[in-house]
């Protein structure tokens, strides 16, 4: 109602206002008539009297406007007037308007995209009630997000700070609803998960803490709305239906509401199951194993009035109790809190840093665009100085003219902002629908749909940038002397060596050069990391995922099956070597464990000799993966349960524990349990958890012995197949052979290099893509900037150029006169940008492996790119300068 009343008031005022304008006109006219009457009476002719009366009165337009202002409340009307005038002015120069709108659309669009990604992943909380008091619990100084289940139970039951604590775990499984087993992603959660988060069922019911009665006691499934929608076609009769999960019967309890997509932002699960059924889902139950830390994540709502610091102190006191009570399993039990959703700081930390960096670069783009538009506006104001002088002479106030200039600027920026936002919405829609890792993790999402906050920020940026570049010609307008301009015509600026426009152009080119430099560094880094040595050869190899545990094989039959699979694959023609590994290196992190030297008797975690990455591999793995054996031997099928425990270690491990690789072979170390393990071979170092890591110790254990190693288990394994024939054909053969062995076993086949692109190189690929796009934008902006400047200076100097040509100047000399300045500015800006860019790319090295600014190729590339950009941008102005016909020009002026 209030809004309506306000609108009515404004409308009334507007109509009323036009009445008043006529009124004022009439009144002033009547004044002049009355004065003229008096003058006529004193003996002047009527026309002379009227002329005198008008002169005596002074600037009619000016006083009329002052009258308006005296009436007050005409703000909206003036704005509308300015807007109308601006639209007319802009329509008169469509080229300028188009370039300006396009530039801004680009810059504001880029900012909107980056901001909405940041908004979606960092600023926006999870879709649960009271998300502001929901925290995830991290452990130790390296902020690990994984906890063991017994530790979680202690934390949950002993703390006094949280309403409740829930734990959950992500895992893959096979679901059979009656036709075909399909691969699914699910969250295993504690029974209190939905109750603690305050989520209400959309359909049916959820499971509760009261449903948990020990291992495998709660075979229930709660579907996400989207999985129910796509796989069960919104069938409301699904509640109560029994489905096969890894060949175990599970009952569908209900469906979650559409906006609740689990508690991980980047992975939308298909459904939830109670974690007490872990053995059925994962093939192994580690819920009673205090030393086993999978990916169990813990979070909960703080009680009202409890601060973060109090909660941390509370958790830490439980931590020190756990350290004392379970010295063998629990060490470094200090805790911290973080926002949930991004797997804690493991993913959230680098993501936050990268997005902040990206936001900064996007801000730079906007700044460059503003500099670009600022110089365009300054040039425009210079061209319009005659018009401005005329308006000043006719009594318009400078304030009014400035207001009009700002209206024009803000109008352009708003249109640009709207266009940019529209473009970014299209892009973000695409991004949200995109499944970056379609084969490895089809549920991986980038949920970045823009919301009101994004629109508001875009609008704000548009207005601010409008004022920013609108402010550039202010000084110029304030200094305009109408008298001089009208008398002399356009003044040619003489003697000033550096103008504001030049500075703006240099700034803009420098910013663009920074963007071009950083994108080139990123691209080079990516190329280099694709060709670096990972300690295995991903090309010409495929990964065959034969999910034994989801096919219902229990732990004791796994190793037998493994051997059968490897033997089968080895007989296929075109297969050069086959070996299995529990989890391929560089595939979303790695398992690790602490080890002790053989002489250590007191096996406290603090006495550990090293923390080593742990793999369980079958005989033949090193051959299939092309990991070079440096000393000793690799595993054989005789290294089984009955044989003494053996391991192959990498060079880093050998030199750290044994001093050298020759000492290592035949030496012993102890694992966390104190079991003595003999080292039989040493292999080359590699990359295990991430491609940017430092050299890490790694241990390869014999798969046939490892099911009995505590804390590491062979529930998953991947077969590495090195091939020598057409891989597509081979894949079909492999699939059919495996189906012969067990038709109910889900099989996935992937090229190793492609899988690596999707996992370990994913981040640097995305970073490179983002930086590449920003670099491209920078390049486009510098082209428009240089083009604008060059075209303007050529058009201003056409006459001079004509005279030069008439006096016999060579083409080269004409070009130098016309564009020399543009090129000098370009060179200067590029050099500044290059230096800044190289300084900035030190930061890049954290994300993109091998990104080093000291790279002659990058340097040469940037110089070449900027020179090319300059050439492209000045091409048209140069043509125009060269085609100058002195005769026509001189005749025209």
């Amino acid at each position, binding site marked *: 109602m209030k809004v309506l009343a306000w609108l009515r008031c404004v409308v009334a005022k507007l109509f009323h206002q036009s009445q008043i304008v006529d009124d004022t006109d009439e*009144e002033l006219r*009547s*004044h002049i008539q*009355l004065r003229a009457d008096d003058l006529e009476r004193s003996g002047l002719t009527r026309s002379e009297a009227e002329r005198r009366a008008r002169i005596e009165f*002074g600037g009619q337009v000016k006083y009329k406007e002052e009258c308006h202002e005296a009436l007050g409340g005409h703000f909206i009307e003036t704005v509308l007037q300015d807007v109308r005038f601006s639209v007319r002015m802009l329509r008169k120069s469509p080229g300028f308007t188009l370039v300006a709108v396009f530039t801004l659309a680009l810059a504001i669009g880029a900012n909107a995209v980056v901001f909405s990604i940041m908004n979606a992943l960092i600023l926006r909380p999870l879709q649960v009630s009271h998300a502001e008091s929901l925290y995830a619990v991290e452990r130790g100084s390296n902020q690990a997000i994984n906890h063991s289940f017994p530790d979680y139970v202690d934390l949950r039951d002993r703390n006094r700070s949280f309403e409740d604590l829930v734990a959950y775990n992500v895992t893959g499984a096979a679901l059979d609803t009656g036709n075909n087993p399909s691969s699914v992603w699910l969250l295993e959660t504690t029974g209190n998960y939905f109750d603690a988060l305050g989520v209400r069922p959309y359909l049916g019911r959820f499971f509760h803490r009261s449903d948990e009665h020990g291992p495998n006691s709660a075979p229930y499934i709660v579907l996400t709305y989207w999985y129910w929608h796509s796989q069960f076609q919104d069938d409301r009769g699904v509640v109560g239906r029994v489905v096969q999960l890894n060949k175990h019967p599970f009952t569908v309890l209900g469906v979650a509401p559409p906006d609740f997509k689990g508690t991980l932002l980047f992975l939308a699960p298909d459904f939830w199951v109670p974690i007490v059924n872990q053995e059925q889902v994962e093939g192994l139950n580690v819920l009673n194993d205090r030393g086993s830390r999978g990916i169990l994540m813990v979070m909960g709502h703080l009680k009202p009035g409890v601060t973060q610091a109090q909660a941390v102190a509370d958790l830490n006191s439980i931590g020190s109790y756990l350290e004392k009570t379970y010295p063998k399993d629990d060490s470094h039990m200090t805790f911290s809190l973080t926002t949930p959703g991004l797997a804690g700081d493991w993913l959230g930390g680098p993501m936050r840093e990268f997005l902040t960096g990206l936001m900064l670069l996007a801000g730079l783009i906007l700044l460059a665009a503003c500099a670009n538009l600022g110089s365009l506006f300054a040039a425009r104001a210079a061209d319009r100085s005659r018009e401005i002088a005329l308006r000043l002479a006719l009594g318009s106030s400078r304030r009014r003219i400035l207001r009009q200039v700002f209206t024009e600027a803000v109008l352009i920026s708003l249109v640009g902002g709207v266009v940019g936002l529209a473009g970014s919405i299209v892009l973000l829609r695409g991004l949200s629908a995109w499944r970056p890792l379609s084969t490895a993790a089809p549920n991986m999402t980038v949920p970045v749909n823009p919301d009101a906050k994004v629109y508001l920020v875009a609008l704000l940026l548009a207005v601010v940038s409008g004022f920013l570049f609108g402010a550039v010609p202010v000084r110029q307008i304030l200094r305009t002397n109408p008298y001089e301009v009208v008398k002399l015509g356009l003044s040619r600026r003489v003697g000033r060596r550096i103008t504001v426009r030049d500075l703006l152009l240099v700034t803009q080119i420098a910013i663009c050069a920074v963007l071009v430099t950083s994108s080139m560094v990123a691209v080079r880094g990516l190329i280099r990391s694709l060709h670096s040595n990972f300690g295995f050869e991903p090309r010409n190899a495929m990964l065959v995922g034969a999910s034994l545990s989801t096919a219902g094989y229990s732990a004791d039959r796994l190793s037998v099956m493994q051997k059968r699979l490897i033997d089968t694959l080895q007989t296929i023609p075109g297969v050069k070597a086959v070996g299995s590994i529990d989890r391929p290196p560089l595939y979303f992190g790695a398992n690790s464990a602490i080890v002790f030297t053989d002489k250590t008797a007191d096996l406290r975690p603090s006495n550990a000799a090293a923390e080593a990455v742990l793999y369980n591999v079958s005989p033949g793995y090193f051959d299939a993966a092309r990991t070079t054996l440096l000393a000793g031997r690799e595993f054989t099928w005789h290294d089984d349960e009955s044989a003494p425990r053996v391991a192959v270690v990498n060079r880093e491990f050998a030199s750290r524990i044994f001093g050298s690789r020759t000492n290592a072979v035949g030496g012993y170390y102890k694992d966390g349990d104190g079991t003595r393990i003999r080292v039989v071979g040493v292999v080359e170092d590699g990359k295990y958890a991430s491609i940017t890591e430092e050299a890490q110790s790694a241990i390869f254990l014999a798969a046939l012995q490892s099911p009995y190693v505590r804390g590491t288990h062979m529930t998953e394994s991947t077969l590495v197949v090195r091939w020598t024939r057409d891989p597509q054909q081979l894949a079909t053969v492999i699939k059919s052979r495996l189906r012969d062995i067990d038709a109910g076993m889900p099989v996935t086949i992937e090229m190793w290099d492609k899988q690596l692109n999707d996992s370990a190189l994913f981040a640097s690929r995305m970073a490179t893509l983002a930086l590449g796009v920003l670099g491209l934008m920078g390049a486009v902006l510098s082209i428009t900037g240089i083009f604008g400047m060059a075209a303007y200076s050529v058009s201003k100097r056409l006459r001079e150029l004509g005279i030069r040509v008439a006096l016999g100047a060579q083409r080269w000399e004409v070009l130098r006169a016309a564009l020399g300045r543009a090129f000098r500015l370009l060179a200067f800006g590029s050099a500044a940008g290059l230096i800044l860019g190289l300084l900035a790319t030190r930061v890049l090295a954290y994300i993109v492996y091998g990104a080093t600014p000291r790279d002659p190729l990058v340097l040469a590339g940037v110089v070449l790119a900027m020179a090319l950009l300059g050439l492209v941008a000045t091409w048209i102005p140069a043509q125009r300068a060269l085609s100058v016909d002195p005769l026509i020009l001189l005749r025209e002026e």
Partner: protein
Amino acid sequence: MAEQAQLLPGTLDLLILKAVSLGPLHGYGVLLRIGQISDSALLIEQGALYPALFRLVRQGLLKASWGTSENNRRAKFYELTTAGRKRLRDETEGWNRLATAIASALAAQPEEI
């Protein structure tokens, strides 16, 4: 014409109120009246009168209505409102106080101190 003095800022409003208080006037009439009552000693730009008139109308001190001038031209006539009359009284008192104070200050002789 006698030597003319520039108006002090803020005094134009007071002069207009005074002029109108002697009877309804149109804009040009206000100008003539001020000239008449001040012996043409004050210089007022003709156009500058109108923004001041509009301001006084907006403040509710004057009210305006269209009418016909003595030589049969349409003109807008201004007259004082009650608020305008009160304002004129207050401002006149204020002005007199100020003028007396300034005059006596300027008249001060060395022996009086």
